[in-house]
């Protein structure tokens, strides 16, 4: 007020000055107030070290274990009999194996996006969810990796995929997108694991120091590599972490780009399209954020983490889901546009067949899931309600599976020659392996929740107000 009297020429209208900022414009906090270094540490580490696992965890664990059993059964049958037990045949030679591979790999992308790209963009809200999302990435990549490894039919020869000097004197064909895929996915899995482990090291040291059992102290102590929090170590650590984020960012974009090349480099109508790389990357982010929401909403409830994974996080994830969902929908529109604009009979037939052919129900459901459902996130009421977010996320989990179904079998099932037209359905073994891979994912996730801190403790510490320290001028 006093300042206003001194400078009447810069008068601020009293209405704008007096009116308080409406509550809806004030973002909810990234961390609930009232925490300090000790309480953050104790709360997150006690999930691993002290507390008994809640019932929901037991359900996840045993459902996962059951799924792993189903996976074991289907894989055993597959190895003994061969890929003939699947629904693939002429003309659809690529079915659930590539479909589920792409679905899982796409889900994994959100983890890297949250941990690397949001770090580089200084989006501090990523801190509470990055560990969780990175773990999800690893397990999704593990589930995805099953399919290419097993679809070869003779998985005991899978090492032929890798270049190594052999007595046969043969080498892989490096001009093929499938070889690019081998390198992209194996690099992605390796770098994600490194990134995740590096992030874990300081927290493993916390668990080592907080653990009361001898075994816990020994195992966490060995895994933490003797981390002691020296300032010199932190300096190099932050340097390495930032550069790893910088390396992971183009990597994550390249992985789904290369996955899309598996299709786009072919000559097949419905696959041969230049917009596939960005289309696939957007779809991956969309699917991944949906999966993070699917897992984070129950997890924060079960482990009472509402203070750390606040509504702000969930709302932001809802926004990312909406934005990427609309990019995906834009790609569907472009797909339709180009099939007509190309003037190519086969392109036009392919699109018409997708929408009105025998698989039209899949396409219609796809539009509902990926075109309409993300529009829910325009409404703040939906973005700030766990129920609505969960509904939206479930739609996109399903939608992204349908998208890959629509891309893969519907492009293949009506060949250029009508005499070779056919239909594709997954057999019980296809579905068994899909359910089994979900079981593996849940099982690994349950083990992660039990044995490792699901929120990065040291990064949450840095978000507390008292973590700010400034060197005096000298």
């Amino acid at each position, binding site marked *: 007020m006093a300042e206003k009297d001194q400078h009447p020429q810069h008068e601020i209208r009293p209405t704008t000055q007096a009116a308080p900022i409406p509550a809806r414009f004030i973002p909810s906090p990234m961390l609930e107030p009232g925490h300090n270094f000790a309480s953050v*540490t104790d709360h997150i580490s006690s999930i691993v070290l002290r507390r008994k696992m809640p019932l929901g965890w037991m359900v996840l664990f045993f459902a996962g274990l059951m799924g792993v059993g189903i996976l074991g059964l289907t894989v055993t049958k597959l190895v003994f009999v061969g890929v003939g037990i699947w629904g693939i045949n002429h003309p659809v030679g690529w079915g659930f194996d590539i479909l589920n591979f792409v679905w899982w790999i796409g889900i994994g992308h959100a983890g890297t996006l949250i941990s690397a790209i949001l770090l580089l963009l200084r989006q501090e809200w990523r801190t509470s969810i990055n560990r969780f999302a990175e773990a999800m990435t690893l397990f999704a990549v593990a589930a995805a990796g099953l399919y290419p490894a097993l679809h070869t039919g003779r998985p005991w020869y899978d090492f032929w995929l890798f*270049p190594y000097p052999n007595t046969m*004197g043969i*080498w892989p*064909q*490096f*001009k*093929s*997108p499938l*070889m*690019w895929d081998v*390198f*992209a996915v194996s*690099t992605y899995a*390796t*770098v994600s694991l*490194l990134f995740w*482990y*590096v992030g874990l090291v*300081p927290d493993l*040291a*916390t668990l*080592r*120091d*907080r653990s009361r059992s001898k075994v816990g102290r020994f195992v966490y102590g*060995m895994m933490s*590599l*003797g*981390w*002691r*929090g*020296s*300032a*010199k170590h*932190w*300096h*190099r*650590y*932050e*340097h*390495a972490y930032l*550069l*790893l984020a910088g*390396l*992971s960012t*183009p990597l994550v974009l*390249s992985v789904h780009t*290369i996955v899309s*090349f598996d299709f786009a480099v072919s000559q097949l109508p419905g696959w041969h399209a230049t917009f596939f790389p960005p289309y696939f990357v957007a779809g991956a982010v969309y699917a991944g954020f949906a999966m993070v929401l699917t897992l984070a909403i129950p997890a924060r409830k079960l482990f009472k983490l509402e203070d750390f994974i606040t509504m702000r996080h969930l709302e932001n994830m809802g926004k990312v889901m909406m934005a990427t969902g609309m990019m995906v929908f834009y790609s569907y529109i472009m797909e339709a546009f180009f099939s007509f604009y190309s003037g190519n009979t086969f392109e036009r037939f392919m699109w018409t067949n997708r929408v009105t052919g025998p698989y039209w129900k899949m396409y219609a459901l796809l539009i509902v899931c990926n075109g309409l459902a993300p529009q829910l996130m325009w409404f703040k009421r939906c973005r700030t309600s766990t129920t609505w977010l969960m509904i939206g996320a479930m739609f996109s989990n399903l939608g992204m599976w349908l998208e890959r179904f629509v891309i893969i079998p519907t492009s293949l099932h009506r060949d250029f020659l009508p005499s070779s037209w056919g239909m594709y359905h997954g057999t019980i073994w296809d579905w068994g392996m899909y359910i089994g891979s979900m079981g593996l994912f849940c099982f690994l996730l349950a083990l992660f929740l039990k044995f490792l801190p699901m929120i990065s403790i*040291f*990064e949450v*510490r*840095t978000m507390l107000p008292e*973590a*700010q*320290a*400034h*060197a*005096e001028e*000298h």
Partner: protein
Amino acid sequence: MGIGKPLEGTYGIMAEFNDPQSLLDAANAAREAGYKELDAYSPFPIHGLSDAIGFGHTKLSGIILAMGLLGGFSGYFMCWYANVITYPLNIGGKPFSPWPAWVPITFECTILFAAFGAVLGMLALNGLPMPYHPVFNVKRFENASRDRFFLVIQSRDPKFDVDSVYKFMDTLKPREVVDVPW
């Protein structure tokens, strides 16, 4: 402890602080008082702390760049050697040596090698893994990974003298000052 011959004296003297600001001020004061062999321990990275203990530069960037370049060259060389020199394949009459087709693998190898450079380089420069370190002999040091902040002046510092270091540490208003035994 127990292995080899016992070392003389102590590893250093450790002061414990409650908050990051005190540690940062203490580290700056210690450097200005002429101590060189300092280390500070905190449960999270503190901006400016490595400068305060007189450590400003790391060779890590160079290692990562070198590894990345090595990865890129090896990836490209692998494709070229395999598909041009030792096992040329004629795929639909396409050229034997198409550099654009090798870009994805070259790129992936660059990232892979650079990432290993970043992680292994960081660990190697930090001297990790090192499960045993004298600072772990201090019982209260287990809070270094929770909510406490520690400054150590090592005994190998040329200015190190137990009495004067204790006296100096007391001026920093720590919670506690203790010896770090070997």
